[in-house]
């Protein structure tokens, strides 16, 4: 019987009373252990909740500060030295041109690279391994370094496009490319092999299989990755500061190669830096506009992924 005895305290009490050893499995872990577990859970919950609390505070803070300037004028006016008249129109159009140019460039390159790496690359070849490692490493390179790359090779140097919107597009393309490639690869990989084999068994070529079966099934995944990458690019400021998104542009760019553009976050940054409180209000209002766009895109991407994710 001795070996089954369980609870220190109770057992001693029972033994002291001269009774036979009892056996219990009732909540008998020591009190200190219970406290430790509780404290641990509290710590974990705190860590999760602080992120959520921050999100809520950040949105409320921006809403409170910026509400007085949240109106249509904010969207239709051009930047101005007079805070009451300043608006975001040129920044909105600048963002559209930059992001539009980025999407057109990024999609074919990103998807193409993903198809190559998933469907054709032999992972034993050294150059394919190099590509893999390289993509992983690029994901950790700070965004501002891409700005320097854009400044040295795209705005000036070999391409010498000058400070045009498409220079911003190209810079952002290079920055988000690793993310897009990784997401697209994942999407392609999750297409069941049976589908490929089925298609090949019917005599389809590799290309036909990819075009008619693999890609259509991978589109939701690729779209999710692309939207997340685009929303990251929309909010990006630092690299664009280097490739010439100037902060005081009172006209809309009329094409990807027209000189002089600004984007939403760059314009917000400019307002944040001004000492006057009126500009701070403008910055807050601008942040609300930016957050609405980004939250909408993110929610759509997450919805898309949950919708098409195959049940595990």
């Amino acid at each position, binding site marked *: 019987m001795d070996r089954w005895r369980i609870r220190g305290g109770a057992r001693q009490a029972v033994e002291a009373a001269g009774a036979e050893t009892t056996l219990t499995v009732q909540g008998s*872990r020591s009190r200190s252990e219970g406290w430790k*577990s509780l404290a641990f*859970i509290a710590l*974990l919950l*705190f*860590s*999760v909740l602080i*992120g*959520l609390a*921050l*999100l809520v*505070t*950040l949105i409320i*803070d*921006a809403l409170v500060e910026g509400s007085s300037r949240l109106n249509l004028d904010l969207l239709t006016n051009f930047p101005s030295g007079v805070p009451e008249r300043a608006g975001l129109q040129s920044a909105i159009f600048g963002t559209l041109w930059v992001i539009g140019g980025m999407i057109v460039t990024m999609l*074919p*390159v*990103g998807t*193409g*690279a993903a198809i*190559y790496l998933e469907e054709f690359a032999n992972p034993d070849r050294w150059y394919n391994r*190099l*590509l893999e490692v390289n993509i992983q*490493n*690029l994901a*950790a*390179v*700070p*965004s*501002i*370094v*891409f*700005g*320097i*790359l854009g400044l*040295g*090779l795209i705005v*000036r*140097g070999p391409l010498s496009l000058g400070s045009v919107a498409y220079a911003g597009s190209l810079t952002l393309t290079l920055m988000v*490319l690793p993310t897009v*490639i990784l997401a697209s690869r994942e999407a392609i990989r999750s297409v069941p092999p049976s589908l490929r084999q089925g298609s090949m068994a019917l005599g389809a070529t590799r290309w036909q299989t990819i075009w008619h079966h693999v890609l259509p099934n991978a589109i939701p995944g690729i779209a999710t990755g692309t939207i*997340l990458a685009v*929303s990251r690019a929309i*909010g*990006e*400021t*630092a690299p664009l*500061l*280097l490739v010439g998104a100037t*902060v005081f542009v009172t006209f809309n760019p009329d094409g990807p190669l027209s000189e002089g553009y600004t984007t939403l976050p760059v314009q*917000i*940054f400019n307002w*944040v830096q001004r000492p006057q409180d009126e500009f*701070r209000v403008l910055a807050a209002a601008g942040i609300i506009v*930016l*957050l609405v766009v*980004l939250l909408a895109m*993110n*929610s759509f991407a*997450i919805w898309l992924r949950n919708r098409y994710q195959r049940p595990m």
Partner: protein
Amino acid sequence: MASLFACALVSLLVTVGIVLALAGPTIEFFREVSPLDFFSAQEWAPTFSPASFGVLSIVVGTLNVTFWAILIALPMGLCAAIYLSEYASRRTRKVVKPVLEVLEGIPTVAYGFFALTFITPLIRDNWPGFLGDAPGIFSAGAAGLVLGIMIIPTVASISEDAMTAVPSGLREGAYALGATRRVVATRVVVPAALSGIIASFVLGISRAIGETMVVLIAAGNTPNLTFSPVQSIQTMTAFIATTATGDIGVGTITYKTIFAVGALLFVFTLGMNLISSWLVRRFREVYE
């Protein structure tokens, strides 16, 4: 197929491009400024005359902010990951994970604004006197704090992936020995997922080092060789962003300085990556 390969090659060309773009002006920079001055001079004033190129000031500025950021981000990110992987119900996870993703998607300029207009005043108004001088309008600590919270989701999501990948047989084995959930999480799951957790830590640190907007907005922009959290400092990234925004001619020493600092930053993150992959290999657990 060749065109697909070319697409994949673009990613490699980006790296080559970065190295080339940085190398040329950096080499020219070091023709004019001796590396000894660069790394040992106390003062950083590259645009003044006489100019001084003691990069240590802004390197320390970067480390200062990074220190406070990772002090927050690493433990809290890990805790959030443990909660999501080991404690949260499937329903909770379904709500919390997208919120974390949304947090990752908030533009850094918004975090910077938040640090400057909300966190800093909050700290200044509630500063306990016994800690000495209150932080100024711009401070390394406030920027680091917000930066840290900003990085929590990055650390949490990668760590959580690593923990979820730990085979459930290990958890069952520990539970069957009478381990509590806390013990299973801390003594079994975390050690088994260590390599992924380390990878998340290193990525978090890399992000803190490379982040620009929060520090540019909230940490001030004054080179200051200090580890104090209450002072205004300049980081490497903030220097690059500030200087490059002005109109600077190609070939001037200021232009080259941007590239030299950029090269140093790139070497930093490259180094972090190398350390990361070494650590990941070192701690990789094969479960079977």
